[in-house]
């Protein structure tokens, strides 16, 4: 029986991409970003993801947290590698040897390798960003395979509880401060943490009862609106999968997909075909307009 598609808040940006196509695209992009440490491929994946996000991101979404998270991840990864790795031929400067871990020569090669690691994090984060910024939570659950449906709901629910615990912590702390509580050492935090934990347990029990009342676990999850699978969804999903398969095949075949800047910095090896695989990820950006 065909179910008529009900317009959701996402359908005014037609043509929409099916949630499952988004999921496949994200998995393929993350696979490429993490399968190689070559910064060129990672930059291409990140640029493809940026194009897709710019095309699909609703104007009302706040992009600052994502930008800040990306910058922090990249800088932290580069900094850790620069300070912890002291190999490489081109020494930029030297830190005193008595500095724990960081003491020793700071090299251009370790900076480049740290940058490549940071770019990997940026590419991976941008690859999964559409799942939270473009799709609604129920879309993500819909995109999960049937076998993982319950797991997906459980994970999504527990992720929601994290923000709930944060809100509870702030309210309990404010209430205790109004009663004259001030933080004095670790032991004093008992007066905040115990109410927070008790509230979280109560919230969990309430949520479990509410879900049971709505028939959770009684059968397959039903949807008010069915997302259809169009040709464009298939093209996007298949091209993303093809890109990821190219990288997997290249690694299995022994083609150099990685980059190693030590001992002397050199250009990364680049295969034109793998560049094409990265470009395939930009496909969703071209249907939006």
């Amino acid at each position, binding site marked *: 029986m065909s179910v008529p598609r009900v317009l959701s808040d996402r359908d005014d940006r037609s043509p929409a991409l099916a949630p499952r196509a988004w999921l496949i695209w994200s998995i393929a992009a993350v696979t490429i970003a993490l399968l*190689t*440490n070559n910064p*060129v491929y990672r*930059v*291409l994946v990140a*640029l*493809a993801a*940026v*194009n897709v996000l*710019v*095309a699909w991101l609703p*104007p009302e979404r706040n992009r600052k947290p994502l930008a800040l998270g990306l910058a922090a991840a990249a800088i932290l990864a580069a900094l850790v590698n620069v300070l912890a790795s002291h*190999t490489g*031929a081109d*020494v930029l400067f030297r830190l005193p040897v008595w500095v724990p871990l960081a003491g020793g*020569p700071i090299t251009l090669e370790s900076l480049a390798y740290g940058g490549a690691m940071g770019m990997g994090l940026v590419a991976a984060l941008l690859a999964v960003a559409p799942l939270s910024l473009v799709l609604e939570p129920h879309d993500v659950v819909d995109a999960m395979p049937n076998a993982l449906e319950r797991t997906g709901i459980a994970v999504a629910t527990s992720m929601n509880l994290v923000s709930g615990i944060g809100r509870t912590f702030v309210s309990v702390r404010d209430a205790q401060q109004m009663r004259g509580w001030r933080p004095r050492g670790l032991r004093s935090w008992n007066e905040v943490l115990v109410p927070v934990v008790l509230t979280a347990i109560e919230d969990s029990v309430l949520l479990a009862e509410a879900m049971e009342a709505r028939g959770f676990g009684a059968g397959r999850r039903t949807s008010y609106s069915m997302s259809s699978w169009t*040709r464009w969804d*298939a*093209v996007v999903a*298949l*091209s993303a*999968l*093809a890109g990821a*398969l*190219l990288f997997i*095949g*290249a*690694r299995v*075949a*022994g*083609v*150099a*997909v*990685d*980059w*190693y*800047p*030590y*001992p*002397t910095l*050199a*250009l*990364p*090896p*680049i*295969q*034109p*075909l793998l*560049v*094409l*695989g*990265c*470009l395939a990820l*930009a496909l969703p*950006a071209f249907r939006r*307009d």
Partner: protein
Amino acid sequence: MTRARAVALGLAALTLGALASLAPAAPAVPMCAAAGAHHAAVVVEHGDGSVATRCVAFDASDVTGEQLLTQSGIAWSGQTFGGFGVAVCALDGEPARYLDCPGKDNYWAVFVSSGGGAWRLSNVGISSLTLRDGDAEGFRYVPAAGDPVAPASPAGVCPARVAATSGAASAVPPRVTASPGSLGSPSIEGSPSPDSTPSLSPSPSQTLARPSETPPTSTERIAVVAATATVAGPAGSDPSRTPPPSGPDTGLLAASVAGGGLAGLALLRLVVRRRRLR
């Protein structure tokens, strides 16, 4: 067949075709090829300046750097680093023992010379290197600090007449096998390889150059091939010993075009989006 299915099948076929083109060249030996049709040189320069050279013959159109080094008969050991490939930890007895690979103070730098050209520093492991007829693989034990200097020139390691005489000389080529993980002497087999894998052998021309009238035993042949050891001259005297800067290749060009295009497109979209919002 619906159009969607046709598109899916087309994409799948394209992916399979692309994967097939990524696979390394098949090592199958052509039916008409004589054993040892191609040659590549191996040059090893130790920390004390002594140099060991080998000329290795092979039938396939190309071999990996790891295969070449193994078949040269020079004892070595290495370690695999993911997609980087195999790094050489110890070579020809140097260092005798090691804890770190690559070593913190000294390491084996790998160089490649294509078609008799100057040495180029390799930034991938020897298992990821592909060498063809006339190429050379060089190793030099260098300090970890500073730019690695290339080993002695491969010129003359594989004489030009090797190619012309290899067909007749390789009737009974000694086959050398060495375990990459061991530093011991490689085992030697006196019979030619019966299988279809790339059959590599030390250059038969070296055997021809031997003044003895009687055919040497397998052990002697290896000894002759391995006997090319000289003391290197000053590093700065040979212009081919400095690694030239590697120019942009097609991959880099493709990546630059793709990256520039994607970045420009993203900027353009952002500008249009801002104008629309205003």
